[in-house]
């Protein structure tokens, strides 16, 4: 299942570099101890711009919710329709969410609240790896 390759920019390069090393890092504000994702130039909690660091995550999370996509707008994903598209909440802060196609989970057999762990999937256009999530058996 080919996926679009995200193109890193100056701000988020460390996130994508870490993915290529199969590590999940999330932007954290040292000054108010608050994670944020997607990364921004400043902390949305306290407005600080120079107290932002990249913190390594455990790679554990839960399925927050999901939908089953039958009619999607991204050309590369059309051959795989329908597919699961889930919201993953991170163990470190459940309000920080990422998305996942939940590889290995049969269509629409998604258990909200189930524990998941991060894996990394290579995208064909540039080889950039992206986070994906697998249900923990």
């Amino acid at each position, binding site marked *: 299942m080919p996926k*679009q*390759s995200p193109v890193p920019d100056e701000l988020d390069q460390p996130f994508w570099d870490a993915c290529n090393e199969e590590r999940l890092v999330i932007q954290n504000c040292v000054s108010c101890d608050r994670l944020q994702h997607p990364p921004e130039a400043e902390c949305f909690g306290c407005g600080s711009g120079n107290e932002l660091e990249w913190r390594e995550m455990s790679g554990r999370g839960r399925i927050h*919710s999901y939908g089953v*996509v039958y009619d999607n*707008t991204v*050309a590369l994903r059309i051959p795989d329709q329908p597919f699961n598209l889930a919201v993953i909440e991170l163990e470190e802060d459940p309000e920080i969410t990422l998305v996942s196609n939940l590889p290995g989970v049969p269509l629409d057999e998604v258990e909200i609240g189930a524990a998941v762990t991060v894996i990394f999937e290579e995208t064909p256009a540039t080889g950039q790896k992206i986070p994906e999530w697998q249900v923990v058996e």
Partner: protein
Amino acid sequence: MPTPNRLGSTAPESIFRSQEGLGVWEHKGKVAAVGIGHSPTARRWDGTAENTIGAWCLMALRKAIDDAGVPPEEIDGLVFLPTTTTGAHWPADRPIPMDIVNAYETTDDPLDGIAKLTDTWLLKNMPELTNVKFVMAGMDCMSNAIAIAAQAVGDGMANNCLVLKAWHNLEGRYSHGGANAEETISGNQKWSNPYGSANSWGTAQQFQRYLWKYGKTKEMMTPFMVNSRRNGLMFPEGYWYQHRPEELTEEDYLESRWIAKPANLFDNDIPIHTAAAYLITTAERAKDMKQKPAYILNHAADRTIQRGLNQTLEEAQRSCASTGRKLLEGAGISASDLSFENMYDGFSLFHVFHMEGLGFAGVKEGEGLDLYQEDISIEGPHPVSPSGGNVGSGRTRFWMHTDSIQQIQGRAGDRQIRIPAEIGVSGGPLPLYHSDWIVWGASPD
């Protein structure tokens, strides 16, 4: 006009009542909507000069002025929305038909009046508006424009202020092509696009969690959908009434194809081409106009920014609850004072979050779908979405306002609710971010 912000709006945020605890609105009952004007509706622009979105704006504005019975030279305010689509953008490689552009007074942008709007284009093409002194560009929705006009008229910046919202629609599907057709992805979409995307997925995943959290079923949406189409088929200004007068049956809804399950085709509103305008004035002036005043008792805004990539159900619920408190507090009413509610419904699945946040008919979080199983019709004790909303009349985000004004004025025709229409509420679009609501009253108190 002040300099636009990055979103094209010239309205300072100080206009909007986005905080809780502000007390009763200082202009409660001192401002009213009187005139209403609608263009026809079409599925898409037919490519003719007389049916450009600009032409239909002029028609809607003139009808609103006429409906109120105000001489055009007494109009001194205009609030409009520069954007006229959420997805039908003019393709960069499509030639612009200059004969059509030149059928009107032009500005330096040939797409003006075709796929966008400026105040310059509107005023150049309405020479009868000789005294417009207050002009402001709002953000996206009629809800935003009404809130600006209500505050501006209350503050004395304008006496007779027109508000206008238009939607153009062109050939082709929303959101296909462009960055979605590439093998790489930049910008904000890089976080989600690799996994696939559907416009209704964000709401679908919230609703899926809602069903799980409260033990409800998707089928419980059906009475709302059937009722909304029924109300739309009694809305002569709307798309389904004018072009496809077909009722929506339970089977139609439940058997329609999935877009992003649990959102199906009918949970996604249909993009259309149309325009509407209202005349907002002072309560004093309204008394002498042709129509009964629909008093504005409050306006409230939500400017909450979601925490992360995906707005969660819990964020939506917190936002809707806060909006509900702001609306009631500023109008000095309680939820039981509401005769009807016209909260936003495009996508249909989040209407229940708005309704619960408002506490309409006593519903609490998790109980909204139960209310749908009772009598929510215009004949019943708690009319839900008597406008039929976007579900009943197409994607405009303004049917709810037209209907609220008409209900209060007693001229909603076949849609007129059977209990007295004393106080109602309308607005949207989403939970969070950039949403605005209005409380309407038949009496200024």
